[in-house]
């Protein structure tokens, strides 16, 4: 009796959503909020993590990278391990859970220009990129993108 009651889904507290999975099928439960991830990165340059955040931009050529809104005015670029999977190109604004490895990375001028081009930025914007940028970079082995509220 105790066992049965204890393992019932906890109603409103349960994650009652639907996700589309890309790459490895990852666990969405227990994902860190962006602030919590940034807090952990204060004491470590690189960690394995699962984080949930809003998608801020997606590669408009193939869906081969996406930016997550880190809630501090900055974004974090997420790339996909071994270029083995892509995400929907119109997923900007949706909630995503990503699982993998995050580290401080120096993004080269070539990569930043390529990324700006993929994001559909103007030639003037692309030409204005002349310096490498240091930011958090996430290599995901799996991504879950929220599709719509699951039926109760």
């Amino acid at each position, binding site marked *: 009796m*105790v066992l049965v009651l204890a393992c019932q889904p906890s109603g409103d507290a349960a994650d009652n959503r639907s996700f*589309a999975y890309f790459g490895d099928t990852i666990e969405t*439960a227990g994902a860190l909020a962006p602030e919590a991830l940034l807090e952990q990165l204060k004491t470590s340059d690189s960690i394995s993590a699962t984080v949930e955040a809003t998608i801020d931009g997606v590669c408009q050529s193939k869906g081969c990278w996406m930016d997550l809104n880190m809630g501090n005015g900055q974004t974090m670029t997420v790339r996909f391990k071994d270029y083995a999977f892509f995400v929907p190109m119109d997923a900007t604004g949706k909630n995503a859970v990503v699982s993998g490895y995050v580290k401080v990375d120096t993004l080269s001028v070539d990569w930043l220009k390529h990324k700006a081009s993929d994001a559909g930025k103007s030639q003037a914007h692309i030409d204005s990129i002349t310096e490498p940028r240091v930011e958090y970079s996430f290599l995901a082995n799996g991504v879950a993108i929220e599709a719509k509220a699951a039926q109760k």
Partner: protein
Amino acid sequence: MSPRKIASLAALVWFGLLAACSNEADQAKVQAVSATEAGTMYQASELAALMRAMASGHETNKSKFAAGEWDADVLRNWREVHANMQSAQATKPNEIGDFFREKSSEYLERMDEVIRLVEANAPQAEKRDAYNSLIETCVACHQQHCQGPIPRIQKMKLPADAATGNEG
């Protein structure tokens, strides 16, 4: 055991089970849907599809080549199929220019060299170096056009210690 101790033990078991099951319950209610329900997926262009097939071929055969098990028929077939990259429709056709044409020609020339070495039963180290030089043309081209797959392409190179094995 006193009733108080029994009650304490029961409470401990109850909270333990709740903690153990909460994550399971959260995950259990998540519903998996198809990729298209999250948005519009990229449809591979002719060139992208060809390059995926090329990558798959290189990855599948890597361990055999590293062990010295070369197959000239496979390589000759690749040479014929991979030559289609010079005419296949690209994801961004406007980016296909002299640099791509130069690198794709270089790739095919280096493939010819690998085939020549395999047919001549050359030492494994020579075949390995020629093959890695072939893969390097892919890296050089992607540095200019699309950097995403570079880490994956780098893994296709044969390891330096693959200088032994069957010389056939």
